[in-house]
């Protein structure tokens, strides 16, 4: 059986010769995907299916005076109309409820108010126009610093600031003020020979997954509910449904479909409750598929920010003091990523004296969601330019300056925790040794910049089961949604433990009725945390099979061992059984063997993955257009379970970072209208915009994982904007204080316009 939780120790295995980990097999599901057979969210179809559409607010801030749905209800082909009144009274947390279907107020353009289920999406859309909503329009507040002012329009009359001092007495748009202090910042700045201070603003950016959100709900005659949805986490969706529908969790089955990108944005649930309400009222299954404009207006973005950074260093190159103020837009409801921004901003460095203040601020824009290393990219864009400037003022090479000051094992972070073993210095040394760092730039108007970033692993909770089949193959189930090949990496760890080839392991993502609670696939946790569950399940299988061999041979179980090739006993060297041979005898020796792994990885000491990026860019001085010519991303991944997949994560993360750095953003008018709700105007990078990104994998094993795995998926986006900004400084002599660094902004900084 599996080890009781309190006895589970971090394990560092003796080095063994790995047979599966470190190889590059094709990913599960790849063949289905190239054939067009993989079932994504909108591909779900059921008999008698109806189609749902959502009525959304045209105003950024307004009181809802009345909602009259009678005309829409009478429209031919309409089967159900729902509003917030259809949510069970008192069910769910107020903000969660209001963001699903607005109650008294709408707080952003695109805020859901009502929904319609009809015979076709077109009929549902036509009927939306028949819903009569009366508004009292209120002035919106759209900028984080304006929202923090005492006279700013208030989004929530009940919201009062939480801080270390408790909760404030009067309402505010500031939901939380958090603070980390280490050492004596004033004293530290007094010791500094050079002090640099700058302020930065960044725009909200959308995750830009190509698959819009889609959810299909079916109620069964016994009152239970099945929901098929494209999500990063089926269990959190189940919890959300349970809370807002006031339904026991066991009566809800959430089936995660294939997911067409999420990047954090599909860790939130938007249309699942709406689909369920419509389906219940209509008495038929309902599918709700969002349009791209709905995705851009009402889901996901990562916060816009204002960040002020001040750092001081001595002449000998040591950073002695730092302070940062981070103001993050949460969107319409509290819960921005300012916490992880504050946690990450100085994470790469050993700074004796520092203070970080973070503010979580509501504004009249959509509720923000996670986006790949949430909160870290703006923070690192800011701090890496200040670090670069310090190095320049001190006349030290920027890589050497980072090496002088980088965090090491035992360094206490400003946010409190000391680091376990993390390859900060190893990454910097690998970058310095890489030919890119010393290569000639090869032309005018070109510059090279570097930036250093870090993202911590969240391990989370995961379940995995492994069933042994009579032919020696195994069936693996996990609750972790397969984002970009994570399932393959999980199964590879199980195969390694079991001594099997990967083709003997068939892994699948289970629905919430078929496996235990598993957190979202997010936070760089899946290959790490669910990998731990897979390893535990595999070890459970081996323990049970050792007992079967012992029974067959009539020897004590302690004498039976498995070296990932054969089961043997020290009692009788002639007894040998392969995994396959023993699997064939399970039926006759006690029945099926099923191993389980159910882990809470957060009891382990927390590591993470640092990355150092080198960017060469070219600036067209006439138009301000920036082209990324060459890009190298060095990262400590602990151990690359599937190196091809890790490289894919790095290439994809850098591509997103380039878009964020140079042109992506959600731009709002003064009235709170999203000005670019299409992919024409909200430009994502194309094949013409991204150079060949060279990933450099550094492997400093994480001591808490048996194979040394670190989460690798998020770090690759963190340093990109900072590296490009530092490269642009080399060309323009100007620091870039705003994201995105559009041609117009670059020309403005150069004084051209």
């Amino acid at each position, binding site marked *: 059986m599996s080890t009781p939780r309190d006895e589970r120790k971090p394990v560092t295995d003796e080095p063994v010769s790995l047979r599966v980990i470190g190889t*590059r097999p*094709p*990913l599960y*599901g*790849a*063949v289905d*995907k*190239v*054939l*067009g*057979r*993989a*079932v*994504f969210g*909108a*591909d779900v*179809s059921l008999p008698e299916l109806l189609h749902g559409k959502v009525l959304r607010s045209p105003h950024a801030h307004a009181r809802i005076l009345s909602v009259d749905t009678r005309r829409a209800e009478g429209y031919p082909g309409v089967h159900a109309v729902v509003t917030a009144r259809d949510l069970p009274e008192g069910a769910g947390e107020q903000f969660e409820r209001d963001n699903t279907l607005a109650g008294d107020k709408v707080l952003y353009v695109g805020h859901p108010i009502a929904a319609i289920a009809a015979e076709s999406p*077109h009929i549902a859309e036509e009927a939306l126009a028949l819903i009569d909503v009366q508004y009292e329009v209120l002035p919106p507040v759209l900028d984080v610093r304006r929202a923090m002012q005492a006279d700013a329009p208030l989004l929530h009359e009940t919201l009062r600031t939480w801080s270390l001092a408790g909760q404030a007495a009067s309402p505010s748009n500031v939901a939380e003020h958090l603070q980390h202090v280490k050492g004596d910042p004033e004293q530290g700045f007094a010791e500094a020979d050079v002090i640099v201070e700058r302020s930065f603003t960044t725009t909200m950016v959308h*995750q*830009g*997954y*190509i*698959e*819009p959100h889609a959810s299909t709900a079916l109620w069964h005659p016994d009152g239970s509910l099945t929901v098929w949805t494209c999500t990063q986490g089926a269990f959190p969706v189940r919890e959300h449904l349970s809370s807002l529908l006031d339904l026991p969790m066991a009566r809800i089955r959430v089936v995660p479909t*294939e*997911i*067409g*990108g999420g*990047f954090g944005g599909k860790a939130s649930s938007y249309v699942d409750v709406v689909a369920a309400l419509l389906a219940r009222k209509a008495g038929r299954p309902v599918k709700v*598929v969002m*349009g*791209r404009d709905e995705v851009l207006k009402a889901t996901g973005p990562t916060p816009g920010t204002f960040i002020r950074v001040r750092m001081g260093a001595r002449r000998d190159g040591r950073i002695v003091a730092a302070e940062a103020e981070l103001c993050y837009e949460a969107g319409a409801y509290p819960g921005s990523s300012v916490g992880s921004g504050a946690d990450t901003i100085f994470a790469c460095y050993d700074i004796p004296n520092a203070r970080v203040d973070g503010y979580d601020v509501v504004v009249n824009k959509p509720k923000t969601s996670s986006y790949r290393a949430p909160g870290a990219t703006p923070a690192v864009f800011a701090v890496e330019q200040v670090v670069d400037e310090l190095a320049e003022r001190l006349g030290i090479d920027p890589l050497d300056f980072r090496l002088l000051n980088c965090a090491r094992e035992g360094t206490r972070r400003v946010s409190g925790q000391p680091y376990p073993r993390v390859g900060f210095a190893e990454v910097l040394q690998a970058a310095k040794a890489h030919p890119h760092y010393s290569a000639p730039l090869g032309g005018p108007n070109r510059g090279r910049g570097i930036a250093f970033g870090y993202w911590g692993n969240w391990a989370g909770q995961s379940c995995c089961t492994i069933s042994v089949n009579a032919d020696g193959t195994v069936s693996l189930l996990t609750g972790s949604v397969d*984002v*970009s*090949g994570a399932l393959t990496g999980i199964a590879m760890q199980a195969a390694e433990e079991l001594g099997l080839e990967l083709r003997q392991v068939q892994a699948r993502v289970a629905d919430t009725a078929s496996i235990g609670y598993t957190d979202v696939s997010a936070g760089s946790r899946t290959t790490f945390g669910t990998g731990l569950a897979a390893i535990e399940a595999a070890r459970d299988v081996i323990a049970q099979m050792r007992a079967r061999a012992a029974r067959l041979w009539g020897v004590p179980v302690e004498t039976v061992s498995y070296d990932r090739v054969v089961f043997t006993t020290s009692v009788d060297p002639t007894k040998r059984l392969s995994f396959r041979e023993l699997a064939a005898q399970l039926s006759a020796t006690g029945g099926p063997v099923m191993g389980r792994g159910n882990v809470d990885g957060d009891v382990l000491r927390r590591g993470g993955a640092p990355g150092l990026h080198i960017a060469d860019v070219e600036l067209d001085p006439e138009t301000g257009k920036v082209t990324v010519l060459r890009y190298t991303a060095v990262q400590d991944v602990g151990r690359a379970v599937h190196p*091809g*997949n890790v490289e*894919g994560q790095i*290439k*994809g993360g*850098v*591509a*997103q970072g380039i878009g964020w750095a140079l042109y992506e953003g959600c731009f709002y008018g003064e009235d709170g209208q999203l000005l670019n709700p*299409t*992919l*024409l105007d909200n430009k*994502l990078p*194309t*094949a*013409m915009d*991204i150079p*060949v*990104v060279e990933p450099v994998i550094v492997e400093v094993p994480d001591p808490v994982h048996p194979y040394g795995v670190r989460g690798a998926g998020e770090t690759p986006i963190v340093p990109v904007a900072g590296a490009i900004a530092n490269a642009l400084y080399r060309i323009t002599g100007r620091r870039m204080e705003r994201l995105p660094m559009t041609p117009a902004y670059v020309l403005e900084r150069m004084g051209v316009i």
Partner: protein
Amino acid sequence: MDGKVRVQATINGQPVEFLCEPRQSLLECLRDILGLTGTKEGCSDGNCGACSVLLNGRLVNSCLVLGVEIDGGEVTTVEGLAGPDGLHPLQQAFIDHAALQCGYCTPGMLLAAKALLDRDPDPSEERIRQWLAGNLCRCTGYDRIVRAVQDAARRMRRDADVHAEG
């Protein structure tokens, strides 16, 4: 059936006849009427390329074509790429080069690449990148897709040579 139009076309080599509303896009007809859900919707305004199909040999965004417009025409979707001998060389190359991660843009990307290779069996990297610039991918950073198309082109030229010699 009021207001619906009868459409006859050849889809993936098969004769097909269906009824659709004049306002339904080809994308909706493929997915919702014909059950060909391999073609994906990403934006429905022609900016992401996820719904790319071939119409009479020409690469189109099926969200920007009305279903009634294909009457008498020929459409190729991702479901029509693989042949009796197995995967199309582009499909195989996408797997071999890990040119897909989430896989949502993949059907459109495959069709766009096929349209290019049908015209130019030996395209330069620059031409591949230009040709695929109408198909957004958010996962890969594109370079493996470019490598996969180059590799598939090589395989297809080699196969063509073998056929020519045989």
